[in-house]
């Protein structure tokens, strides 16, 4: 994960064909998204990724309420998807598009069953004063992650 001024970026190699990787990222987003990472009041029941520009990523709670926290800005299967991050610094739905950041995900084949997936969360400065908090929340992390914490705790 590298961070430029107002974006964070990360990439992985998935041992999967590009079409499959794209489908899992979009249509099957609910299969891998962390169930605690939502801004609903209730518990997350399902996620819907509407496969078109102008669609949304929608979180539905067990009580039926929903939260449209992302607008789909580009949808070019199986190569690229861009969606907005309509979440404020207070972790509430941001209704002013001028104050939202965006995420671009690109899929590049590295072979028939291997795909490089690159994610960039950019324009974080649009969240306004204190936007660095959002960058810290979505980005960076510690090299080595929780394993380093575990090693520290053990030491």
């Amino acid at each position: 994960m590298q961070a430029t001024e107002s974006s964070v970026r990360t990439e992985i190699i998935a041992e999967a064909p590009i079409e499959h990787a794209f489908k899992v990222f979009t249509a099957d987003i609910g299969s891998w998204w962390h169930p605690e990472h939502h801004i609903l009041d209730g518990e997350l029941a399902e996620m819907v990724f509407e496969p078109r520009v102008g669609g949304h990523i929608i979180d539905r709670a067990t009580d039926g309420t929903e939260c449209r926290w992302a607008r789909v800005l580009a949808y070019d299967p199986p190569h690229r998807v861009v969606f907005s991050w309509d979440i404020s610094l207070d972790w509430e739905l941001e209704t002013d598009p001028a104050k939202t950041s965006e995420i671009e995900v690109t899929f590049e084949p590295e072979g028939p069953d291997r795909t490089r997936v690159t994610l960039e969360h950019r324009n974080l400065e649009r969240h306004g004063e204190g936007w660095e908090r959002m960058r810290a929340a979505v980005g960076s992390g510690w090299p080595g992650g929780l394993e380093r914490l575990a090693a520290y705790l053990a030491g």
Partner: protein
Amino acid sequence: MTTNGLAALGDPTRRAIFERLAAGPMPVGELARDLPVTRSAVSQHLKVLKEAGLVVDRPAGTRRLYQLNPAGVGALRAYFDGFWNQAMAAFKAAAER
């Protein structure tokens, strides 16, 4: 919650309790037996860990069992791994299933 979680683990006794609970649910008495502190001190530490979202408790017969709270530990992991790094690792695993 994450910041509280980190603060809660700043204390060596609480870290020791947290590590023991990683092995599985335990009542206060059992936790206190292995640690060089009193049972009431262990209870106080558990209270802090609970407030930080790292530990939850539930009644089991006449006693209470304490265990790690997956949500709280998950939040800590997100903090250390970075939100998108963690999400992309989960995505990779799903894409390769």
